């Protein structure tokens, strides 16, 4: 967890930056999960009864609906990791609501990689019966997202795509994945 002291304001708010490939969750009402997204996707989940929320942040090179590849496995893993981390803090999957942000196709000449990533997140949430209550995806802008995890309140500001960090797709750890240990 990376906490930048400069970004803590007077109202005790603690800003936690969610880096690419990471999952952060909180039940603390003062915690703001924050990230900047170009083509990357952030899914924000929230359980209004347990008052637990969380965010992940990913960009996969080749998420695909027609074939199941390593990226699809890794994307589903990052979504599941977010759900499981929240369950440990008392959330219930059946109560979770979701927001999806990002997936901009910042560079006109690039493949619509942002769109394919947001489709993967949507497909996962639909399959798991987690309702998507808000989405702000696509387009050519970058986005700054602030998510008050414990109350489920989010703010998404559009920023010029040129100002967005140039994200490289998350490298799926190839060799250590799925290692088997026999007892």
């Amino acid at each position, binding site marked *: 967890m990376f906490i930048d002291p400069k970004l803590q304001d007077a109202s005790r708010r603690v800003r936690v930056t969610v880096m690419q490939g990471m999952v952060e969750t909180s039940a603390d009402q003062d915690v703001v999960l924050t990230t900047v997204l170009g083509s990357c996707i952030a899914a924000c989940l929230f359980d209004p009864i347990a008052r637990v929320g969380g965010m992940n942040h990913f960009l996969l090179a080749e998420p695909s609906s027609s074939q*199941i590849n*390593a990226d*699809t*496995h*890794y994307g*589903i*893993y990052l*979504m*599941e*990791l977010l*759900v*499981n981390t929240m*369950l*440990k803090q008392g959330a*219930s*999957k059946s109560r979770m609501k979701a927001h999806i942000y990002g997936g901009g196709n910042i560079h006109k000449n690039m493949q619509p990689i942002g769109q394919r990533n947001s489709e993967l997140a949507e*497909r*996962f949430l639909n*399959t*798991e019966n987690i309702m998507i209550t808000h989405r702000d995806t696509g387009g050519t802008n970058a986005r700054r997202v602030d998510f008050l995890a414990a109350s489920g309140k989010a703010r998404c500001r559009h920023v010029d795509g040129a100002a967005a960090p140039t994200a490289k797709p998350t490298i*799926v750890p190839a060799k250590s*994945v*799925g*290692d*088997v*240990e*026999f*007892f």
Partner: protein
Amino acid sequence: MEKQTKILTVDDSRSMRALLRVALVERGYEVCEAEDGVEALEWLETNSADVIITDINMPRLDGFGLIEKVRASTRHIDRPILVLTTESSDEKKKRARDAGATGWIVKPFDPEKLAAAVRRVAH
């Protein structure tokens, strides 16, 4: 003709069950599914599988509870059980081992390694 190996997958995530189904069916296995420990036990009352693959975090009855109940049964006492989970802590592994799990696989899974593990434990 050789009998097809039947696998019961237990996971509350439909996305994960679908990934497992594709990976295992492509490699010649027959796949049955349950969405938590309770449903798995109900299924095992009247059915049988050669190998059980189970998640840990599940509602109603989690993976640890399922392993304990299967090991306490008479019909499935020797059934190989592979845990497939996002968890990797030594403490959770120890709990699974003590409950009687056969092996532990950390997600995201590699279909080839999973199939190899199934081949190794199926009997």
